[in-house]
């Protein structure tokens, strides 16, 4: 029983990682109705910037804030400069642009920062809370940060006019323009916010998995799965989905065996989607003929 509890808690910790990246994916989907496959690499690249700042002597929270701002600006610039020219192209063409961005950022990070793993500091104390051996303070702390970001997002989308404008622009750009919403800048804002959330996720993930250019590769699939499991248009659902995926992965690995972990975990996820095709908390879309 103790072992199972341990695995579940550890799964929640890994799930926290997936949940934070899933949030960034949901953010970009809310703003643009597209899933940005380059989200992980952008987050990784931003984390490297944070690392460089810390190496240069900037204290942790200063580097954190600067990195979030940098990521925001980077997201806005990418949307306006790189994504805008293909806005009206078929969806798959845009997806290819995302894949290109993924490859570019991964390659650039490797070139600039080399491929050796680097330790990334955690702002949380090294001693575990109450001396427990289940979850480190960092794992608890990053889960907390993910929930705070989730809360901020929820408030932003539900209660601020800007959030409403963004949702409108993504759902119905033509009508939004008629109402006076600057759709182009809403998209850019969405990208910026998603990149900022991604950067935070990266900085929370790096102390656990160690910073290296391929750090986000394995995470992206599970984050994607978590986001879809919870419902791609529900930030809360995505976070819950991320946690579920993390626990599932751990428990399946421990009790079914690690040699088929990927297959079993993903069969389960796909199984849920077949039963509830819009995810657990997603909105069911009714298409008018």
């Amino acid at each position: 029983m103790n072992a199972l509890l341990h695995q579940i808690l550890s799964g929640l910790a890994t799930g926290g990682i997936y949940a934070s990246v899933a949030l960034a994916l949901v953010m970009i989907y809310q703003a643009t109705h597209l899933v940005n496959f380059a989200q992980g690499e952008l987050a990784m690249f931003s984390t490297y910037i944070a690392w460089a700042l810390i190496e240069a002597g900037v204290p942790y929270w200063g580097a954190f804030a600067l990195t979030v701002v940098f990521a925001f600006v980077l997201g806005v610039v990418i949307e306006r400069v790189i994504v805008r020219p293909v806005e009206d192209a078929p969806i798959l063409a845009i997806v290819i642009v995302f894949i290109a961005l993924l490859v570019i950022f991964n390659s650039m990070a490797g070139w600039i920062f080399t491929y050796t793993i680097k330790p990334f500091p955690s702002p949380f104390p090294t001693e575990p809370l109450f001396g427990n051996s289940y979850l480190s303070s960092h794992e608890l702390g990053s889960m907390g940060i993910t929930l705070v970001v989730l809360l901020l997002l929820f408030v932003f989308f539900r209660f601020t006019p800007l959030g409403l404008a963004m949702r409108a622009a993504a759902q119905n750009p033509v009508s939004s323009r008629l109402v006076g919403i600057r759709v182009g800048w809403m998209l850019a804002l969405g990208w910026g916010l998603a990149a900022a959330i991604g950067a935070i996720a990266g900085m929370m993930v790096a102390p656990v998995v160690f910073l290296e250019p391929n750090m986000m590769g394995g995470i992206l699939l599970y984050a994607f799965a978590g986001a879809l499991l919870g419902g791609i248009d529900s930030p809360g659902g995505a976070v819950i989905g991320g946690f579920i995926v993390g626990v599932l992965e751990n428990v399946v690995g421990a009790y079914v065996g690690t040699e088929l972990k990927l297959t079993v975990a993903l069969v389960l996820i796909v199984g849920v989607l077949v039963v509830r095709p819009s995810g657990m908390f997603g909105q069911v879309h009714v298409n008018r003929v």
Partner: protein
Amino acid sequence: MKRSLVRIARWAAAGALIASSLAGAGVYAQAPKYGPGASATEIKLGQTMPYSGPASAYGTIGKLHTAYFKMINDNGGINGRKINLISLDDGYSPPRAVEQIRRLVEQDEVLALFQTLGTPSNSAIQKYVNAKKVPHLLLATGATKWGDPQHFPWTMGFNLSYQSEGQIYAKYLLKNKPNAKIGILYQNDDYGKDLLKGVMDGLGSANAKMVVSQQSYEVTDATVDSQILTLQSSGADTFINITTPKFSAQAIRKAWDSGWKPLHIVNNVGASVGSVLVPAGLDKSVGLLTLQYYKDPNDPQWKDDPAMLEWRGFMGRYYREGDPKDASNLYAYITAQLMVQILKQCGNDLTRENVMKQAANLKNVKLPLLLPGMTVDTSPTDFYPIQQGQLARFTGTLWQGFGELISTDVK
């Protein structure tokens, strides 16, 4: 009459002198022989390296080789010939490796292949290069199958073989902790399974009783935390850690954080102080055991070692962008030195046959960055250049070797 005799004698003497000097010249100034990729001014070598993809951390090895050969060329080259290393990216993908190697052999026509990296890539090209009779030297992988001159006479590995390493750990445990309950974490690929086989073979019939848990992981996994927990809950008091640097660091840290303190043996690939123990936490790594066969650049005991200082000088002058804390960079240096030795032994006969012959003719070669007392030896029936290692224990600051140099005889 006497005058003609003297004249004959003089002619005979002159003739003898000319004949002997011709013979002498023949011995010392043989006409040079060139195979593909070699000429009076150039020696072409080829390799594939994972400059992109999941193993890209090892790309630094190819970059160091390029820097090293530049240094050799700056100092006159080998017997006056410059080395031209063509190093191509295969992304750790076998089909791409096949494509690149075919290019190196059929288009660039290199003299020999040097330190092609990765077991899957090398498995893909082994049959081809042997069919084409291209020397396939000093492979950058520890798979045991590279030392098989009977079936693959053109392929020769370099690393201490993984199975040898596994067997050494097994023998150590049988001798010092025969009642151990062993948990093993291994990477689910060629390298991990080779080491695992070495351990299991080394334990012999005792392996069923002693090994209580085996957990694998994929290179695409985010963490190995779950596997560590499973191993811990299996009751194992000994942990054999067969992982690559990133996962090794995670394993060491997670074991510590979960309060699990087994006898922890970490494999050579995942034992570098700079790339693994520092990120994991030096305090969490005290008491770790590993097998070494070359000096760790982060080990303070080699601080003033002349060979280490020479390597650092090289890094500073020729490979500034390389990380001096990365043990791969020291490993690459040793292999490059050995290649230069082979080429030097070739003299003026730079055919592929002779390169292979010289590679199989390394006698008592001392490379000062290997552990003290080690030598490199090969013969036409022994295609394992490195067959010695020493166990070491981590003190918190350095890897302290203990016991004598162990020789292996895994074939």
